[in-house]
C-alpha cells in the first residue's frame, strides 16, 4: 500500500520534473513545478512528516510559486527561444548529468542494503518540531529571521522605481 502510494506520488514528481524541462513556456513549467511540490508533500506525509508536508504546501506551493506565477504574468513572459549557448549546454550538460545521475543511482543502490524507512515511525508532530526549532536550533532560527528581513529590504529596494516618481503601485 505504501509502496503503491510512493510510486504514485513519485510518478507525479518524475513527470512534473521532466515536463518542467520539456515545456517552452514558463507558465507551464511553473505549473509542473507546482505539481512536483504537491506530490512531494504527499511523499512527506508517507514519511510521517505531516507538519513539513503542510508547510510545503502552504509556503512552497501556495506562496513562493504564486510569486513566480505573478512575475511571469506581470512581465508577460513568452516562449523562450533556443540560442547557440543553449545548444552547447544541451550537448555537454545532458550527457554529463546523465552519467552523474547514473553514478549516484549506482552508488545508492550498491551501498543501500535492505534497510527501509519505517513508515510513520517518526511522527513529525508539531510539538516536537517546535521543541527542536525554538529550543535546540534557536540561534539558526533567529539568524534566518535576520536573513528574511534583509531579503525583504533587498526586494523592496530592487523593485522600487529608480526615479522618485514611484507614486503608483508597481
Amino acid at each position: 500500500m505504501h509502496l503503491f502510494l510512493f510510486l504514485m506520488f513519485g510518478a507525479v514528481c518524475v513527470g512534473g520534473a521532466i515536463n518542467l524541462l520539456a515545456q517552452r513556456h514558463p507558465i507551464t513549467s511553473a505549473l509542473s513545478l507546482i505539481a512536483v511540490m504537491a506530490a512531494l508533500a504527499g511523499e512527506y506525509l508517507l514519511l510521517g512528516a505531516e507538519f513539513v508536508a503542510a508547510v510545503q504546501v502552504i509556503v512552497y506551493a501556495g506562496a513562493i510559486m504564486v510569486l513566480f506565477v505573478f512575475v511571469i504574468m506581470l512581465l508577460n513572459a513568452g516562449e523562450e527561444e533556443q540560442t547557440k549557448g543553449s545548444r552547447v549546454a544541451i550537448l555537454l550538460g545532458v550527457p554529463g548529468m546523465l552519467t552523474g545521475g547514473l553514478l549516484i543511482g549506482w552508488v545508492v543502490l550498491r551501498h543501500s542494503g535492505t534497510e527501509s524507512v519505517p513508515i510513520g515511525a517518526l511522527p513529525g508532530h508539531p510539538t516536537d518540531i517546535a521543541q527542536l526549532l525554538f529550543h535546540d536550533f534557536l540561534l539558526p532560527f533567529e539568524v534566518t529571521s535576520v536573513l528574511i528581513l534583509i531579503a525583504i529590504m533587498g526586494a523592496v529596494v530592487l523593485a522600487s522605481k529608480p526615479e522618485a516618481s514611484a507614486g503608483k503601485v508597481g
Partner: protein
Amino acid sequence: MVPSYVPLSYYLLLSGFLFACGVVGFLIKRNIITIFMSIELMLNGVNLSFVAFAAHWHALAGQVFVFFVMVVAAAEAAVGLAIIIAVYRTRETLNVDQVNLLKL
C-alpha cells in the same frame, strides 16, 4: 493492514532524479525565470532526502533543516524575482544570453 515499507534507496533515487533534473534545467533553459525554477527543483530534491533520512535515522533534526531550506528558498525567491523585474526593466528581455553587457 500489513505495514509495508519503502526502501530508503527509493527515496534517495527520487531525490537524486529531481536534483539532476534541476541541474539539467539550469543548464539548458534560457529563460531566467525557468532557470530560477530549476533551482527550486534542486532544493526540493534535497528536502526529500532530508526528510527520508530523518525518518530513517529517527532524528527530527532532518525535518527542521527542511524549514531552514524553505526559509532560504523564500528569501531567494523574493530577492531573485525582484532582480528579474529590475533586469527586465532595463534590458526588456528575459533571455540570459542577451544579458551580456559585461562580456567582451
